[in-house]
């Protein structure tokens, strides 16, 4: 069975989704979903281990060899992403049963888990595949289920947010499809590895330029790169809390993965960074994203909105690392992918616990929560410190490598701006701390208790991971380094 791990990675959650319909009780469905996601996590850790030991794994679907059939191609980069997605999904699911009991009507629980599993399977499928069209198919699965999940939010505004996301997401997906279509037209193949061999022959044609531009714009819509981020804050703020925790840690990461995969593996480094003024454009947009979104975050009254804007800013950091286009820069991006997934899932899960207890995430409702929900608020503080990039947290590790990468390239103004961006993070995290710890509880709210254990266990698992990987960076750094080196090795 070990040889079939790549496909099992996707098939387990995918097949589990329709099976959920045959189970009736909400608790049973939750357990089943948790087991499926846990299995996916197990498989992804086995895969990562295999890849680190023996190199790229190729799996031919249907037994047809590559450019004719579809293949799964797992290298260090995929395996790393698969691990992040399935790990976050499993940990977040631990709290799902308690959280959605309050936020979603009981007759929709089964559908919620089905959509959750489909979304998970879709993201895993995007990451695992080595075929450009297969990417689009699984992108559709993950986005369709994402729209429905977001619209399930309790607030009526969730529908509008989901609709906005639907329009933007569909435009993004269509752009990607147009790009893939043109690539197929110029090369006659859809396989990524094959594309990377055949594209250089036709690299001078305008059609290939157009294909590249369309794919990049489509992916940037999906990853909410400033100024294409407008769908993200509302979608994150009004979705059910569990969904926010899951998507904030995974959805945009998958889009970043696609960006890296298409620029580095498919089009190749020399094409991607010489054809268009991409490097300059991405540095500027990344930095603008960091500042605009951080400043917007400072003025938010809804804490979910606040962290959603902070997510846009964090994507800015990833893009800056990406645009340095050196091994260290890419490594910083990959590290930040991993680290940001840890921070944001911890933060949004903690917010889910707050919603569970007080039913709101308005900043004005946070008065005195520091004493009433000490463990939850402590988790938010540590997550916030990690967001700022304080030493001993994961945030420091990725900022450190990012600074290193920009300095290596002699971009010291960029380094300075990155550090300045971190200062802005201090401001918005401090606003929460101030309200939660230095204001007395609201009258009539004295009886608010700490969140139940089903929240605290996953939250603190993530918080401890935030600290652990901040101190012992061997795993994350080693994998990120191997992945970025292999990407540069393939296309020097």
């Amino acid at each position, binding site marked *: 069975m070990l040889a*079939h791990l790549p*496909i*099992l990675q996707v*098939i387990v959650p*995918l*097949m589990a*989704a*329709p*099976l959920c*319909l*045959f189970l009736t009780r909400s608790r049973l469905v939750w357990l089943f979903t948790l087991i499926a996601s846990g299995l996916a996590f197990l498989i992804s850790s086995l895969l990562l281990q295999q890849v680190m030991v023996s190199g790229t794994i190729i799996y*031919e*679907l*249907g*037994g*047809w060899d590559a*450019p*004719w*059939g*579809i293949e799964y191609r797992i290298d260090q980069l995929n395996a790393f992403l698969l691990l992040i997605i399935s790990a976050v999904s499993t940990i977040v699911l631990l709290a799902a049963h308690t959280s959605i009991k309050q936020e979603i009507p009981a*007759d*929709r629980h089964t*559908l*919620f888990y*089905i*959509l959750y599993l*489909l979304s998970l*399977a879709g993201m895993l*499928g995007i990451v695992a595949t080595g*075929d450009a*069209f*297969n990417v689009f*198919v*699984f992108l*559709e*699965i993950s986005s*369709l*289920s994402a*729209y*429905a999940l977001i*619209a*399930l939010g309790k607030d009526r505004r969730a529908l509008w947010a989901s609709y906005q996301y639907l329009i933007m997401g569909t435009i993004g997906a269509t752009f990607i499809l*147009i790009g893939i279509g*043109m690539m*197929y*037209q*110029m*090369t*006659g*193949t*859809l396989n990524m590895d094959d594309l990377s061999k*055949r594209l250089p022959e*036709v690299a001078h*044609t*305008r*059609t290939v*330029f*157009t294909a590249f*531009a*369309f794919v990049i714009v489509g992916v940037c819509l999906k990853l909410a790169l400033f100024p294409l981020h407008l769908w993200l804050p509302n979608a994150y703020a009004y979705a059910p809390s569990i969904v926010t925790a899951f998507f904030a840690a995974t959805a945009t990461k998958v889009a970043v993965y696609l960006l890296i995969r298409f620029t580095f593996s498919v089009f190749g480094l020399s094409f991607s960074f010489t054809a268009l003024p991409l490097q300059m454009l991405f540095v500027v947009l990344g930095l603008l994203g960091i500042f605009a979104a951080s400043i917007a975050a400072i003025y938010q009254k809804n804490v979910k909105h606040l962290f959603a804007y902070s997510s846009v800013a964090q994507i800015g950091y990833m893009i800056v690392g990406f645009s340095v286009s050196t091994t260290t820069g890419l490594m910083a991006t990959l590290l930040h992918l991993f680290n940001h997934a840890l921070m944001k899932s911890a933060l949004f899960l903690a917010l889910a616990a707050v919603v569970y207890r007080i039913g709101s995430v308005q900043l004005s409702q946070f008065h005195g929560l520091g004493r009433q929900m000490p463990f939850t608020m402590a988790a938010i503080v540590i997550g916030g410190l990690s967001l700022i990039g304080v030493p001993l947290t994961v945030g420091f590790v990725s900022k450190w490598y990012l600074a290193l990468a920009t300095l290596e390239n002699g971009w010291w103004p960029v380094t300075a701006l990155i550090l300045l961006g971190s200062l802005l993070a201090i401001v918005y995290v401090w606003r929460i701390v101030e309200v939660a710890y230095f204001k007395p509880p609201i009258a009539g709210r004295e009886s608010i208790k700490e969140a139940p254990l089903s929240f605290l266990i996953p939250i603190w698992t993530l918080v401890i991971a935030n600290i652990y990987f901040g101190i012992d960076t061997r795993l994350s750094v080693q994998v990120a380094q191997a992945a970025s080196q292999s990407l540069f090795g393939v296309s020097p």
Partner: protein
Amino acid sequence: MKDLFAVIMLSGIYGLLSASFFVSMDAVDVAFTEASVGAGISTLLMLVAITMTGRTENPSRHKPLLALAVVIVTGSLLIYGTLDMPYFGSAQAPIHQHVAPRYINDSMQEVGVPNIVTSVLASYRAFDTFGEVVVIFTAGMGVLALLSAVRRPRDVAEIDSFNKSMYEEHLILRIVAKMLIPFILLFALYVQFHGDYGPGGGFQAGVIFAAAIILYAMLFGMNTARRVINQSFIQLFAAIGVLLYGSVGVISLLNGKNFLDYSILSADPIAGQHLGILLIELGVGFTVASVMVIIFFNFAGRRNNQQNKENNDSC
């Protein structure tokens, strides 16, 4: 254009025209899908949607000039950028040189299905098709999650009486439909099982099958249709379709072959391919038909509830 009804009809015509366009480009399978989905079922679903929202668009004051400019710029860039692409139908074009020759020359020996499109869709790139089926399943589940109305038993009688007055007027339509429906169902089955030899297959068959049921529901009322087709039953059917497709893959896994490798299904690899394609097309048909019916029922069910509410208000 402010009249949404006209907009929908035009989009249906657009679907039909592009279908004939595809026929003239010799892409019969695509044309068939476009005709049944683009011109057929999606027009129908949009019609149901406007019965809920009203027929005219709300006047909006802002002029979307900026959006128009973006669309024009993107469109002209797209045209400019693709000026140097290979000529349509040119034998030298890369798409005809690289992957396609094997499909054309060897698929008969390797898969044994005369329709090359089917052998590519259902065997060479079967995993993409599996993904598409899951996309449709996802859409069905999404509609259910957002729209499934909680029906109170008290309302049912009211809807019944409402339906009677509404549908008794269409006597001719009802009789003609009653005569047509068996043939539509039969045609759907023909399309389903003929996919190996000519254009057709699970997607189109599922849509046609669903269209027959929807036609019945439109003319005889939702409740009569509900008596035939139970809501939770049809949900299970949608799931069974996906599971059938997936389990074909799992069987090849259990036999030590790669996922969706049909050659293991029978002693003779070609017969295995045949059996595999038959089974997965059946799975596709199940899921597509049930999801279309689910979507229609939930749209229409909501409409009935809405009208009930209005009736109650006016009383």
